[in-house]
């Protein structure tokens, strides 16, 4: 097993023309995966799920994030909160499956019970049979452990380490870039939701998503109207990278029907669309008439589940049109599976130096690599917190 403490990342941090990609260990080695996850996924604002999965007060959705048992709960006040999904008593899992809580969260083991805001409200028999208080058990100090969380573009983000800047500051560059799209999103329903279970490291899904270089080879169907030269790179070091197109064709049905546009967009979006990897693990796309969000769920160094959700500007849209649009996107994302899985298998080649980049075409990928390498290097420079 490689010694990750001496995993040299300096070449990744060079200018794109001289840089190499992240070393193999970042895709294949469990110890490096764990180290990187702490630095990159725990230390920043990672996407873990969607607000649409907890649409009403009392809805709860357990989420396993890198082995952490979490639960997203929509409170009576309408706010989504994310807690560790365990009882403060014996560490029992509280919410085993997605569902609606009519009242409190009751632990199935000894029935310690929590309000939807996490407050511990009942400790039955804790002082003996029929005696529900004990001086040693201070309910005020034993509420559910809440993670910092924030919902943006319906994605539920968490900062596990608790040390990242406020979400609004962390996300400011991408929020500013897409300021025009800061308006209500309406999920398209069951036919606008799908997952892909892919045998690849989550970073390869990011890397593939944020560059347009592969489009003519992997998505030849796009060549007819969306040629490589119609795309541009997006690079915001430390925040996001991706690609844009200048020739987005509004989605149309057989009879020319269209989705309603988002309100008040400037003319640049008439035929413009952008696809951004918001670091670390959320892939976003915006168009005049729909948007999507993809949360990459890292399951293992070589396994990622892609959760894909499509949104519209209005609650009521044509079901057939929605289904056709979802089918189109599913085809595109499935076309990418072969290359992200192929690159994953390629990371088993001993001596691979991480690869060289095209300075013209791979800037967004290098931008992501440099961010990951910088986060890992920074974490290595810090004293390790007690676990």
């Amino acid at each position: 097993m490689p010694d990750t403490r001496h995993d040299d990342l300096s070449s990744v941090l060079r200018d794109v023309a001289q840089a190499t990609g992240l070393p193999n260990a970042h895709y294949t080695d469990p110890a490096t995966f764990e180290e990187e996850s702490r630095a990159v996924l725990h230390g920043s604002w990672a996407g873990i799920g969607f607000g649409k999965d907890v649409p009403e007060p009392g809805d709860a959705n357990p989420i396993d994030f890198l082995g952490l048992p979490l639960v997203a709960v929509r409170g009576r006040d309408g706010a989504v909160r994310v807690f560790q999904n365990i009882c403060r008593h014996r560490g029992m899992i509280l919410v085993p499956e997605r569902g609606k809580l009519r009242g409190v969260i009751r632990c199935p083991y000894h029935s310690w019970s929590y309000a939807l805001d996490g407050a511990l409200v009942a400790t039955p028999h804790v002082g003996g049979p029929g005696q529900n208080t004990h001086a040693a058990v201070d309910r005020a100090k034993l509420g559910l452990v809440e993670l910092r969380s924030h919902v943006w573009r319906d994605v539920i983000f968490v900062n596990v380490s608790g040390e990242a800047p406020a979400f609004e500051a962390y996300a400011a560059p991408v929020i500013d870039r897409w300021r025009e799209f800061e308006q209500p999103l309406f999920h398209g329903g069951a036919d606008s939701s799908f997952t892909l279970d892919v045998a690849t490291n989550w970073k390869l899904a990011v890397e593939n998503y944020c560059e347009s270089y592969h489009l003519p080879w992997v998505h030849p169907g796009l060549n007819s109207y969306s040629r490589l030269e119609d795309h541009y790179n997006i690079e915001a070091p430390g925040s996001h990278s991706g690609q844009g197109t200048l020739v987005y064709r509004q989605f149309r049905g057989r009879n020319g029907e269209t989705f309603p546009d988002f309100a008040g967009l400037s003319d640049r979006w008439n035929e413009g669309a952008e696809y951004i990897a918001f670091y670390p693990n959320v892939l976003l796309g915006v168009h005049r008439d729909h948007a999507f969000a993809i949360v990459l769920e890292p399951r293992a160094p070589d396994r990622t589940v892609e959760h894909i959700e499509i949104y519209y500007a209005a609650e009521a849209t044509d079901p057939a049109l929605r289904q056709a649009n979802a089918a189109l996107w599913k085809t595109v994302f499935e076309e990418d599976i072969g290359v992200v899985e192929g690159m994953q298998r390629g990371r088993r080649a001993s001596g691979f130096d991480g690869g060289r980049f095209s300075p013209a075409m791979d800037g967004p990928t290098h931008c992501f690599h440099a961010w990951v390498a910088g986060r890992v290097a920074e974490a290595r420079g810090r004293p390790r917190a007690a676990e």
Partner: protein
Amino acid sequence: MSAAEAALDARLLAAHAAGDAAALAALYAEAGDRAEARGAVDAACFFLTQAYVFALEAGHAAAATLHARLVAHGREA
């Protein structure tokens, strides 16, 4: 165990099997009432505690009353 208690016991087991929190709240409250009526305060508070927790889980309005009864007995904060 009287026939009435046996019947209540059977209904409680059925409600547990069904995971019916609202029914459990009502049935345990009934058991608490019976115990309280015969002056068995500890037993009553056990049952009222059970009722209270299931009422909380069900989001049932009876939770407030059950809580007040337990507080009155010095069993709940």
